[in-house]
């Protein structure tokens, strides 16, 4: 009954994350923008697996003859969350190192590598 609403939410999350990446200068805000895009894509993956009137895909608890939601996207999303954890941790670590050297987190001022 909610139709395509979850997919719309995913696209809004991705659009918000891209907007943060394009228009914000603080390095932490850029990392948050990337985390938003990741959340949007993860939500998209989980939503893909929904089967109408399906139950959780636990083999031993399901009533006989019941439809289950697809379990594969749930596995894909778990993998993606872990990958997102690693990339966010690495980006924040580098943001800390940049702050230690340059004393600022403004991306417009940290531009030694240009041209």
């Amino acid at each position: 009954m909610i139709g395509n609403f979850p997919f719309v939410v995913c696209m809004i999350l991705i659009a918000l994350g891209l907007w943060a990446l394009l228009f914000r200068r603080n390095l932490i805000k850029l990392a948050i923008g990337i985390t938003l895009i990741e959340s949007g894509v993860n939500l998209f993956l989980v939503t893909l697996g929904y089967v109408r009137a399906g139950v959780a895909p636990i083999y031993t608890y399901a009533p006989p003859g019941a439809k289950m939601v697809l379990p594969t996207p749930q596995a894909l999303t778990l993998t993606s969350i872990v990958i997102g954890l690693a990339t966010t941790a690495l980006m924040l670590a580098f943001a800390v190192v940049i702050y230690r050297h340059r004393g600022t987190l403004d991306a417009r001022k940290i531009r030694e590598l240009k041209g």
Partner: protein
Amino acid sequence: MRLVTGQGYWSPLVWLALAAGVALLAWAFWSRGQRTYKAGTEQDLPFLSGERAPEGAHVRAPHLYWGFAQALRPVMDWLKAFHSGFLGDYVTWTVILLAVALLVVVLT
């Protein structure tokens, strides 16, 4: 020993043989020149563009192709501004590339 392209072939060994012949010719010309220079005169000193340069003078890399870069100054300045070093610009151009790819694929 021949790499066949669509329109002909390329053979590096034949090229090497011809290049050796040309090198022999060049050596023949060079060996007929004057071998010596007079040490201790002005022939020994470094000169740059007709001006006497200090010892250890070296035409450094930024001086080469300076004229080329100056002649193409508007293009080079635009390219240098294009590579701004700002992450937001990198993502902007990626989004533009994505939009172009989506348009090309979806509309054909």
